[in-house]
């Protein structure tokens, strides 16, 4: 941010004469606007005492007519926001068809992910499905197997809620050591939307699910035809052992077949025309391009449940059905992608979430975990949804170790990386929800680090 940026929005009657007034004006701006203003404010402070004396230039846009309505029938972000895009890591997967991209969390405000920035995870690529020919079949242990058009599904009562979707591999590259010097790549396998659709419970009533049904699975109409087993009350694994009570009794109640996302139809990247949403759980359960739901009395133990989304443990065994995404949080400012610009007042900002309900509290440390201070949670705080937290910070310009730690409504406290490794080793790939540390350098740069003894 250059000095130029601050001269633009300040109109003649807002010109300030004393440092004090100037500072209070900037503080006010910080409160109402985003990161750009923070940076500008810092630039202003760096030259504290320097009063603006140059007469202000007339903005060139004051002297032209702009575009007419519907010149862009479906609106696009400003051309100055072209850097805010999904990104992938080429070496992570052998191709881009069975691959993943990351949401640019560093550039997003609030809790909602714009649809075009929702992270992508394909097991067989994104496909374009004609909704007029697409069908959903619901069958298995039911009184009457049924088939629905998209129009049929839209006649059912609507259920809508704000929920995050997160790949269980979020943070996977960091198990063995620091690797990605970017918030987008350490935590960008998560997005959050308002999802709108039909409650699974209503579909269950419509087909008359039998008591013997203890699992169901969804299946996609794409090349991966991805399928995942989801537990119902009474679910047991293939060894006859019951699944955890939360998994069997809570997860399915929130499930919907979604046809809309943030006010519009699902995007092809997110499963158009319909997908399952299994809130709070690893996102691969939320099968995209959904064509079939079957109620059954045992799990599939399919590819995704044996070879793929299973977590390797230090004893050489693998955990299965690690469905819930446990509480996690990350500071989104400052972060490696958004540097500091001079000492002074800042607001530390971040995101917290949990698959087990609501975020109860977030604590922030700037000294590597020696002391913590409770942050403010911004409304709204929804269940299984991203929650925004903030905490004012007066940066003295010295090295700092910034981190956040969430506690959820079950009392679960986000673990440290050392605790995770002690329990699970470094080979489990999935569900790395440990406390993230950013190191702030005196020059304002921010880097990804790990604290070995926290």
């Amino acid at each position, binding site marked *: 941010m250059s000095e130029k940026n601050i001269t633009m929005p300040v109109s003649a009657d807002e010109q300030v004469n004393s440092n004090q007034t100037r500072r209070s004006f900037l503080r006010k701006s910080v409160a109402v606007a985003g990161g750009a203003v923070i940076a500008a404010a810092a630039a202003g402070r760096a030259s504290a005492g320097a009063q603006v004396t140059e007469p202000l230039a007339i903005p060139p846009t004051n002297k032209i007519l702009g575009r007419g309505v519907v010149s862009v029938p479906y609106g696009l972000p400003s051309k100055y926001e072209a850097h805010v895009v999904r*990104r992938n*890591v*080429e070496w*992570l*997967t*052998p191709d881009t068809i069975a691959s993943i991209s990351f949401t640019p969390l560093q550039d997003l405000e609030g809790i909602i992910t714009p649809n075009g920035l929702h992270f992508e995870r394909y097991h067989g690529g994104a496909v374009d499905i004609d909704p007029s020919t697409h069908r959903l*079949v619901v069958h298995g242990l039911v009184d009457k*197997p*049924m*088939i629905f058009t998209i129009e049929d599904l839209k*006649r059912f009562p609507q259920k809508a809620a704000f929920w995050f979707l997160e790949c269980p591999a979020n943070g996977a590259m960091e198990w063995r*050591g*620091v*690797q*990605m*010097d*970017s918030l987008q*790549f350490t935590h960008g396998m998560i997005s959050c939307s308002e999802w709108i659709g039909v409650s699974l419970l*209503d579909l269950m009533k*419509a087909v008359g699910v039998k008591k013997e049904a203890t699992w169901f699975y969804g*299946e996609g109409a794409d*090349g991966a*035809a991805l399928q995942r087993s989801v537990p119902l009350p009474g679910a047991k694994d*293939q*060894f006859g*052992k019951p*699944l*955890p009570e939360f*998994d069997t009794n809570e997860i399915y109640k929130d499930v919907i077949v979604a046809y809309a996302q943030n006010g519009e139809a699902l995007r092809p990247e997110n499963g158009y025309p319909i997908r399952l949403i299994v809130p709070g759980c690893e996102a691969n359960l939320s099968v995209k391009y959904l064509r*079939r739901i079957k109620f059954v009395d045992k799990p*599939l*133990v*399919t*590819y995704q449940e*044996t*070879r793929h989304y299973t977590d*390797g443990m230090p004893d*050489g*065994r*693998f*955990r*299965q059905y*690690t469905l819930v995404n*446990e509480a996690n949080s990350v500071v989104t400012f400052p972060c*490696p*992608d958004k540097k500091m610009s001079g000492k002074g007042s800042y607001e530390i900002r971040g995101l917290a979430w949990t698959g087990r309900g609501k975020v109860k509290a977030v*604590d922030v440390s700037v000294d*590597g975990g*020696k*002391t*913590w*201070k409770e942050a403010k949670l911004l409304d709204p705080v929804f269940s299984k949804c991203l929650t925004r937290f903030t905490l004012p910070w007066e940066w003295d310009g010295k090295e700092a170790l910034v981190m956040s730690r969430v506690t959820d409504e079950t009392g679960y*406290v986000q673990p440290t990386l050392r605790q995770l490794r002690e329990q699970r080793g470094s*080979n489990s790939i999935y*569900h790395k929800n440990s406390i993230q540390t950013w*190191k702030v350098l005196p020059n304002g740069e921010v880097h990804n*680090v*790990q*604290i*070995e003894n926290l």
Partner: protein
Amino acid sequence: MFKSKISKTALAAGLMAFSSMSFAGDAAFNGIGKTIDEKAIAPWAISVHFDGDGLPAGKGSVAQGEPIYQAKCAMCHGEFGEGAKGYPKMLGETVEQIHALAAKDEDTVGVRGINSLWGHAPTLYDYIRRAMPFFAPQSLGNDEAYATTCYVLYIAEIIKDDKTVCDASVLKATKMPSQDNFYTDPRPDIKNARCMNDCMKEAPVVKEMAVVGVGKDASSGKTAADH
């Protein structure tokens, strides 16, 4: 239209009664969608459970699977199942080797194979018929899928006899080496405390060596995480 106040009121009452009756309340929504015969669903009902439920009729041999595998699978999974271009191995380290590596916290991610991380042969059939070959999913017939599954099990050293012909009963009877190497999620498995002051006795030991960042070359990194 109405001659008296009474008839208007009566009509209003009648309408109200009618409308309250027509709201469904908590009752199930009926009459939406069509019922469908299981036979009509059959072309979509391709899922196979771990115990072999759902396996179709048909068969295919190791010998019949070899040319299919070499033509359609080897370019990604290796001529001998050793993996290629970052795609998964068919023959990885054994379960015992995985246990030994894991105990030392050495890498077990890149060395997994069908022989060490796949619980049941019927679901291997399911996956091959459903999603393979990668560039042409659902292009193998039931018999071809049996033959390919049979060959993959052979190069993964699970089926030892190269004369084996695989069908539903053979796949059900084939015990995978890792069948009992799985267990259901025990989380929450870690209990952190919400300490606020004097939380660390020593100075933080900070590790840093990040290689990839936004604006840097995302392709310059090293090992690939296994997805």
